């Protein structure tokens, strides 16, 4: 399939810890098309961040075993050497991290940080690199980019820094932008600005975006498809609207119902999921969500469910006792 930008197949990331192996990502498969935005949603420990880093090939060298395959535009990341991966970082795939302060070098002018990758990767000379950097700063909506080119990251606000990080990621026009919690820690009004910017850039530069987040609000209106992760596995995947309105996995529903909504009246009782996320060191054979699930049966506790197709195309869920399909009933 040549129209797929990213093909992930059976990807597994296992960490060797002092207390034994820990499978942070367990057999994840999905594809991402050109110019598509995919949301990866999950709580802490769901493996969403490890997954995004594994796809990037950014796992630490020691104590990690990665199996399966992740192919970005024809390049197999799993097992690739550091040198080979450097060829695709920036040009094929780039990453925006959560904390803009730590992903920028505080003692380097922001212009130089963008220049650097332009000159090293694209072999630009000093003058054209500077011109391109200013262009990029303008692209991400930084006011008076010529003056800002000489600022240090510490002089910018959180929102502005995240814009700079995005500009740095876009320097070598990657085809896939991986954004790991890009707006967490930013104020709501700034968050809206950054998400709008990502949306706009995606269309303008014809790239694909993966939005990794814990916030369902972030993915609801900005993605075309969603992956819901729990304990290192995909529990539901499908078009955004299908996952929000026709979800079949009880965990997806619980996640949706436990987040407070602005449109609800004050003092609305929240639905909660009993218990806590599972310990990845001690995963049972069955469904990882079974101990917290109201519908769990013996089968759920003993046999791990695989992804099965729902009514809609491209909509899959991993559950033995799925919620009934509400096709045509359309949730309120």
């Amino acid at each position: 399939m040549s129209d797929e930008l990213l093909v992930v197949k059976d990807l597994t990331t296992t960490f060797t810890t002092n207390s034994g192996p820990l499978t942070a990502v367990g057999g994840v498969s999905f594809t991402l098309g050109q110019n598509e935005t995919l949301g990866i949603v999950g709580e802490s420990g769901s493996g969403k961040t490890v997954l995004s880093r594994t796809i990037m090939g950014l796992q630490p060298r020691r104590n990690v075993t990665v199996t399966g395959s992740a192919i970005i535009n024809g390049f197999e990341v799993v097992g690739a050497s550091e040198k080979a991966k450097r060829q695709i970082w920036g040009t094929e795939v780039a990453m925006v991290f959560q904390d803009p302060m730590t992903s920028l070098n505080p003692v380097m002018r922001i212009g130089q940080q963008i220049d650097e990758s332009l000159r090293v990767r694209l072999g630009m000379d000093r003058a054209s690199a500077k011109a391109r950097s200013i262009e990029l700063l303008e692209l991400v909506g930084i006011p008076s980019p010529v003056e800002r080119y000489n600022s240090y990251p510490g002089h910018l606000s959180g929102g502005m820094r995240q814009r700079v990080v995005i500009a740095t990621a876009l320097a070598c026009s990657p085809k896939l932008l991986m954004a790991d919690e890009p707006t967490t820690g930013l104020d709501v009004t700034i968050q809206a600005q950054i998400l709008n910017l990502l949306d706009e850039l995606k269309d303008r530069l014809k790239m694909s975006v993966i939005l990794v987040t814990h916030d369902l609000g972030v993915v609801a209106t900005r993605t075309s498809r969603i992956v819901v992760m729990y304990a290192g596995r995909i529990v539901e995947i499908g078009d955004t609207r299908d996952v929000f309105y026709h979800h079949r996995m009880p965990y997806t529903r619980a996640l949706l119902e436990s987040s407070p909504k602005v449109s609800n009246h004050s003092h609305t009782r929240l639905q909660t999921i009993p218990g806590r996320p599972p310990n990845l060191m001690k995963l049972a054979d069955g469904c990882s969500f079974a101990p917290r699930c109201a519908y769990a049966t013996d089968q759920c506790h003993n046999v791990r469910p695989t992804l099965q197709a729902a009514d809609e195309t491209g909509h899959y869920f991993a559950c033995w006792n799925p919620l009934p399909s509400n096709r045509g009933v359309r949730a309120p």
Partner: protein
Amino acid sequence: MSADRTPLLKVRDLTVTFGHHRHAISAVAGISFDIFEGETLGLVGESGCGKSTTGKALMRIVEPSGGTIELRGVEMTRLSGRALRNARTHMQMIFQDPISSLNPRRRVKDIVAEPLDCWKKTPGSERDALVSDLLSKVGIDPAVYGNRYARQFSGGQCQRISIARSLAMRPQLLICDEMVSALDVSVQAQILNLLEDLKAEYGLTLLFIAHDLAVVKNVSDRVAVMYLGKICEIGPADTLYDEPAHPYTEFLLGAALEADPDSPMHSQVLEGEPPSPMNPPSGCRFRTRCPNATDRCAEEVPLPQEVAPGHQVACHYPLTLTRRARLAE
């Protein structure tokens, strides 16, 4: 809403200034509000608006530089030494970072008993019973977990232990400073529900400080919105969210992301960023980003005016009035 309208806490013209002279930052620039007995007042705003500083100033963790704080008629700002330590126990605070709020080297039951031990008013057996009771109330089994160290718990559990600790002295006012913002959605819901239950059981009055609009609305009876050290709007939670009177509140609500793909996309995004509190704009502090601003906004500081019962707004051109005028046409 509470029928009993006696203010438990009366705050008047509270100011907090950091730094000196030319570098002075007024983090809180003269705010006044009441918290009535048995209610939850939500305090919402973006980073740097002074909401956390307000909470800390009420506890006198940071010193207010002006104004008065009256808890049941007792003026807090003049107390010192033992009187201050004593008065503080009537108010308690829960912090944002659950892990950092608990001493990693102490056992859970000692952490919860700490306020009792400080005052040495409770005899040993009664103390242990009280600690066990508090821990079970917040959903931590005292028999299993009481002897564990705080570092062995997850964020949600730590926040439960913090709540148990804060209730030990039977405070009248509980200040929650971003207490759920570091937690996962499912854990957050558990903690919010727990807080509502305990509020009813202990008859608590709450000041709930957070940046998340949906969370604040969920727990609050009334909500105050802060911008750059000033309260710009205060009113009943439902009315304030349905009919915001201040342009800033409207933008804030518009930017809030709903977990619903069909939620209306607000095309109007608030541009720019808040100005520096070191050099705030003259007149209305929001005027530099406000689409409705006029010359009057630059010259006159807007005073709070009532647009509906209990709903006050500090704006020269409140939206509710224009909206009503439009409806009347």
